[in-house]
């Protein structure tokens, strides 16, 4: 039951092969058995069973929606009414959200069952899930390795079959990199395609929620639920939502694939490069054409990202002050003490580092040199992508320079950790959609292929992913012990 696709699960529920309660219990059981993976921060057993019962009644009366009765798990960055929403931080360890994020409401309306809230890097700042207050999420392919981050819990839960699908968010690679590390399919949509309302902000101009699933077909069904304009989010785009499943089987004959030469340099592990080249050859077999493109400003993406994201986070995280909600230090002496100790005691090192960097970048006398300059670089990078995507339909390359590294290996070197996102970060700066799909293994660890498209080209990306998954079996591999 736990290896079925969403389409198979929906069919099984309708044909009464199994009930939603049985399905939910199956996944809750697996979550319990694999607790040591640390994929979940909160498991909503009672709530899930209650929702499953309600779904079964709807199914019985024939009023079910496509996802009715199907379990889903939410990254703990999405506010869920009445359920703890921690954002992976001690700061919000006591925070019971008094409202639900638009994405969460959309899944509820679609009839899905929420299994629980998934582990993540603290406030989505991290590339390995090691900054989580709740500890690292373990990679099911090798539990000594990281899951990737920040949506580490989501990737682990999907890969280990603890949930059929999960939500993630991606500010600099936080959906794609853990998807690649755990061998699943993750899509970061166009900025503005999925509402950010109720999704706790890290860097507002870069954050975007998206699906994490075992294949492109399931990701398409999730996009159908998640996408759409939201009047509560001024940056969401008022554009019709296409049928994401309709074109999954379209032919790729004549598809023009661009390979940015800046992606294939010495920095990329040769073994990873080989996996990517093999995947691209597979597309050539399907009739795609390959073209080398150049994006000279890509090398500036990491510094520009860390200025912009840090600047925005330094302001976004100011609301955690111990006054109205969240962590408050014991017996503060005065206002300054309340602020400094509440924030000092509850934020982790990486969050503090980024708040400090961002505060510095916005300070009087430094603003022009850092923030303004970074915004100019951002424009140059967008222009690079625009130019490249006027020559080809999509761009392909690696998601990450290597496979999942060992827990603790990079925690002492933040720069090394930041370089993890070298192939993903520029896409967020440009606001483009990009997808990571399983493309093979190196040393028994999964390798992801990144496909980058033009604005609102999610249907094309999913089509490209789906066709590949029909001729390859990488996405069907299950980590040992989780079959």
């Amino acid at each position: 039951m736990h290896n079925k696709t969403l389409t198979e699960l929906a069919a099984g529920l309708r044909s009464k092969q199994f009930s939603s309660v049985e399905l939910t219990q199956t996944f809750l059981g697996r979550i319990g058995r694999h607790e040591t993976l640390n994929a979940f921060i909160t498991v909503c057993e009672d709530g899930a069973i209650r929702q499953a019962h309600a779904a079964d009644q709807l199914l019985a009366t024939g009023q079910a929606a496509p996802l009715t009765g199907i379990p889903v798990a939410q990254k703990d960055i999405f506010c869920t009414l009445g359920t703890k929403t921690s954002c992976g931080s001690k700061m919000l360890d006591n925070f019971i959200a008094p409202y639900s994020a638009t994405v969460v409401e959309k899944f509820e309306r679609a009839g899905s069952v929420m299994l629980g809230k998934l582990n993540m890097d603290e406030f989505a700042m991290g590339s390995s899930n090691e900054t989580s207050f709740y500890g690292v999420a373990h990679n099911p392919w090798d539990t000594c390795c990281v899951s990737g981050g920040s949506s580490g819990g989501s990737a682990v839960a999907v890969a280990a079959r603890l949930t059929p699908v999960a939500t993630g968010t991606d500010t600099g690679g936080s959906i794609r990199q853990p998807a690649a590390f755990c061998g699943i399919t993750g899509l970061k949509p166009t900025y503005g395609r999925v509402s950010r309302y109720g999704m706790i902000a890290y860097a507002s101009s870069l954050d975007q929620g998206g699906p994490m699933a075992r294949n492109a077909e399931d990701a398409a069904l999730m996009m159908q639920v998640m996408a759409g304009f939201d009047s509560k989010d001024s940056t969401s785009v008022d554009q019709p939502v296409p049928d994401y499943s309709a074109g999954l089987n379209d032919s790729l004959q004549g598809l023009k694939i661009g390979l940015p030469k800046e992606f294939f340099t010495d920095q990329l592990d040769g073994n990873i490069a080989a996996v990517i080249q093999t995947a691209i050859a597979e597309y050539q077999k399907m009739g795609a054409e390959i073209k080398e493109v150049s994006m000279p400003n890509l090398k500036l993406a990491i510094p520009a990202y860390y200025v912009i994201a840090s600047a925005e986070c330094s302001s976004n995280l100011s609301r955690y002050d111990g006054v109205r909600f969240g962590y408050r230090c014991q017996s503060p002496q005065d206002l300054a003490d309340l602020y400094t100790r509440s924030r000092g005691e509850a934020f982790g090192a990486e969050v503090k580092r980024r708040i400090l960097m961002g505060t510095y970048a916005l300070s009087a006398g430094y603003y022009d040199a850092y923030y303004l300059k970074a915004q100019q670089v951002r424009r140059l990078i967008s222009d690079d992508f625009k130019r490249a995507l006027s020559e080809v339909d999509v761009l392909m390359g690696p998601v990450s320079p290597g496979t999942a590294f060992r827990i603790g290996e990079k925690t002492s070197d933040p720069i090394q950790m930041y370089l993890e996102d070298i192939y993903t970060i520029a896409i967020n700066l440009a606001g483009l959609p990009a997808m990571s799909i399983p493309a093979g293994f190196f040393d028994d660890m999964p390798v992801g292929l990144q496909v980058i498209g033009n604005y609102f080209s999610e249907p094309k990306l999913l089509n490209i992913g789906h066709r590949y998954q029909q001729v390859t079996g990488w996405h069907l591999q299950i980590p040992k012990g989780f079959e």
Partner: protein
Amino acid sequence: MNSQWEAVIGLEIHTQLSTKSKIFSGAATAYGAEPNTQACAVDLGLPGVLPVLNKDAVRKAVTFGLAIDAKIAPHSVFARKNYFYPDLPKGYQISQFELPIVGNGHLDIDVDGVGKRIGITRAHLEEDAGKSLHEDFHGLTGIDLNRAGTPLLEIVSEPDMRSAKEAVAYMRKLHELVRYLEICDGNMQEGSFRCDANVSVRPKGQQEFGTRAEIKNINSFKFVEKAINHEIERQIEVIEAGGTVVQETRLYDANKDETRSMRSKEEANDYRYFPDPDLLPVEIEESLKDEIRATLPELPETKKQRFLEQYSLDLESAATLTSSRELADFYEQVVAESGGEAKLAGNWMTGDVLGALNKAGLEIGDCPVNAERLAGLLKRIADNTISGKIAKQVFDKLWNGTATADEIIEQEGLKQITDTGAIEAIVDKVIAANPVPVEQFLSGKDKALMALVGQVMKETQGKANPGEVNKMLIGKLRG
């Protein structure tokens, strides 16, 4: 002020825009609710919430810009002003910094009959913070976030004013304008119209400005004048004693009538402004400006000029009657209802009506005598049915009752005596009974006639026409 010195004053005025809901959320803006009952998730700055701009606040800002002949920015940007304070829920205030919605404009003021144009540098939209309540919490501070997110238009003037009097004239003019435009209720007690003043002094004739101090939160016309005058004196004293004025923020204490230092420039916050990534830039199309321009009311200055010409009023009356839209509308209705008695209506409105309202502490909207009833009275004065003196009695009865002027005149028998025979008899009687003033008048003391007129009026209980009586007396005495 010591005549060697000149003050330089600029004002920053926060006007609360009278929108139904807050600038970035759907919560109500009504004043006086129970603490924290008008603050929604967005106002509380809960994790994950996002601001959505209230279009009515934008319309009101554009309305103001058009009224002061300012440039309306086709593209303006919201920025975050970052600082920590318990009544600032997000740790930043959403404001406008580099690209405000309203650019350069101006407002004309008048001080002791001398006109002056005051430049307005900019006006920008922003959200208000909540309130910290320091009393009744036993050493703790209470936070009320009802006000958090209330839309404000901060109007920044050029440093064009040279005295506290000019500053107050500008503030009054602005106060009048925002109420005319119906973008702000102008209620200063409730904080809908608040003023910060930037004050510096320099030797007369010097071009460059002196170091300025900012005086915060002076919330009445009276206090603005006193606070500025006090600050000017203080700065002159400092300089004359050989010291230097430091750039700082000062707070005016109305009880002690003094300003005291709040924080120096060194202690000032670095607000780390940057464009708010949660909000799109505000794009204002020409068509929206045209649409708003078409609905602009007649502005105070234009209305005053029209009143001067159309109703032949004196400058003071025209200024008084156009000081609010309600008062001007009331006046024009009285004129229309009375059949064009513009001058008479002007005298009555600026005199008896405003006097009575003032005494009763009422606004024109609450006037017990509506325009129709007042016009009814004026008509009877104009057609000589009653004298001006009797009219005052009638007005008192209009004020305290519901009857019309005609009903009161009828019931009380206040009609002027128009029967010449009856008046003549009384005149003869008075001449006969008052030989002394008659003698005095005949010997050239014109003033003595007044005593005789008074006697006649007394005999007729004021119902004779004093002009007629005067004429008749002279005729009889001079034969």
